[in-house]
């Protein structure tokens, strides 16, 4: 890796790390005031436990070449074959990808908010990391889905679809909250969290070029545009439909746009990011209402924003992928003369990730439910998880 590339990857890794606290605030502000610390801690817990597991075996199993196409091996156990000889590019890549491993399970926390035992979450994250994140990551980046020709620039399938469908499986086992949903307790926190996420997402997407080059610059611009377009779309849909342009709608749209452009960031150009953003903003704005129709309690809309947004972006690659613009070797989308081949591969990749993630996550949750239990008791749920799980209170009056 050239020194310029190395510098950009290291900076990007730090930017991606910052997304998890951003996500914590985005979710925490939407949550109730009596559960905000629990929400922040579910996210910070991922920042504590995943890096250690990633270095021990996560990276090795997710990335080392192993010709079965399904899972890596233990050649990089505790990073034993990763050296800094030459330039440190390999080590920087391990760190960069580790940040993705941190935020992926963290995304699920928004769905299980307000009722999941922290002890169950503490076990869920490591188990899920190895049984779901690692294999799906391997399939998408160097495994059988990659070999078939599907593409996923920064983690639409491997991260957002994966975590989004896992969120659905998790809440199906966990069950609905006992009290009625309440409005966000702090929209200013949501807006700060959104700003941090957007900022960090430049590292997430543009850093995924793993180089400081033209593809990184285009991914940066796409991240900029898709988020803006999706925020606009969601804001205007709500304005027309519900009567007001809301802060939560604008923030939700920005995140939906960021999710949708993630798989496409290094493969599309021109007006494509704006179109992808607008489509994702509109679809996700309606998708968050599906939970009422289907009766699952995805507290903070992880399914409607991350699963749906990730799927929309990943499938739209099948239309907008433009390899000649990047002078790169991947299939053309339908709009660039590639026919439907890439779209079919995108569909296969997402179906594979959805089936694996849903089934395994469901089983993990069932096992946890039958052993240690996954829900706090009714009294703890009523009084708030900040107190029952952490012995703390976020907001003291008169202090």
């Amino acid at each position, binding site marked *: 890796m050239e020194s310029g590339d190395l510098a950009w990857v290291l900076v990007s890794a730090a930017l991606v790390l910052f997304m998890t606290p951003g996500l914590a605030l985005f979710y925490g502000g939407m949550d109730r005031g009596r559960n905000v610390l629990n929400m922040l801690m579910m996210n910070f817990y991922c920042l504590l436990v995943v890096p250690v597991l990633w270095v021990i075996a996560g990276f090795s199993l997710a990335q080392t070449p192993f010709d079965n196409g399904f899972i890596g091996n233990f050649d990089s156990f505790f990073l034993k074959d990763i050296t800094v000889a030459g330039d440190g590019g390999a080590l920087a890549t391990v760190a960069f990808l580790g940040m993705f491993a941190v935020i992926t399970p963290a995304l699920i926390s928004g769905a299980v908010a307000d009722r999941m035992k922290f002890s169950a979450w503490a076990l869920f994250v490591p188990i899920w990391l190895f049984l779901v994140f690692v294999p799906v990551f391997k399939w998408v980046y160097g495994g059988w889905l990659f070999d078939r020709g599907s593409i996923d620039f920064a983690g639409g399938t491997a991260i957002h679809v994966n975590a989004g469908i896992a969120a659905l499986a998790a809440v199906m086992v966990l069950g609905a909250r006992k009290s009625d949903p309440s*409005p966000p307790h702090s929209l200013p926190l949501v807006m700060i969290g959104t700003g941090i996420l957007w900022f960090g997402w430049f590292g997430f997407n543009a850093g995924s070029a793993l180089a400081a080059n033209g593809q990184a610059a285009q991914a940066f611009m796409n991240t900029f545009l898709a988020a803006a377009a999706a925020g606009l779309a969601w804001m205007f849909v709500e304005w027309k439909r*519900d009567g*007001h342009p809301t802060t*939560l709608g604008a923030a939700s749209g920005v995140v939906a746009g960021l999710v949708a452009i993630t798989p496409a960031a290094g493969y599309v150009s021109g007006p494509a990011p704006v179109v992808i953003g607008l489509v994702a903003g509109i679809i996700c*704005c*309606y998708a968050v*209402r599906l939970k009422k129709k289907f009766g699952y309690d995805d507290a903070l809309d992880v399914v409607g924003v991350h699963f749906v947004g990730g799927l929309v972006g990943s499938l739209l690659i099948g239309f907008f992928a433009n390899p000649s613009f990047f002078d790169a070797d991947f299939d053309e989308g339908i709009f660039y003369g590639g026919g439907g081949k890439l779209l079919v591969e995108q569909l296969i990749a997402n179906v594979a990730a959805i089936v694996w993630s849903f089934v395994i996550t469901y089983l993990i949750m069932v096992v946890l439910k039958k052993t240690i239990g996954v829900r706090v008791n009714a009294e703890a749920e009523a009084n708030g998880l900040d107190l029952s799980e952490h012995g703390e209170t976020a907001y003291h009056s008169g202090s």
Partner: protein
Amino acid sequence: MKLITAVVKPFKLDDVKESLKAAGVVGITVTEVKGFGRQGGHTETYRGAEYKIDFLPKVKLEILADAPDVDRIVDVISAAANTGKIGDGKIWITDVETVIRVRTGETGASAI
């Protein structure tokens, strides 16, 4: 001695305070409260889901007054807090047995 309690719209607090000071009132106690009256609540929409907000924010003022001053103070509050729209609030008056100033131990009207 009387306790005048007034619940008014939060944005009227400054007007009420200035009018009371101009009328010679030397102390008020203010509490942020929530409640509903005939105005009822309102609806907020988040991500397309409607939430009924029953309790609206109001400000409660408490003023201790000597009986002869009560009518004048009530008039001042009424005038300053009035917008003519529903939800302007209420004022009520209760008897107070005595008042004690903590610092000096004075009681009755001289403690007001």
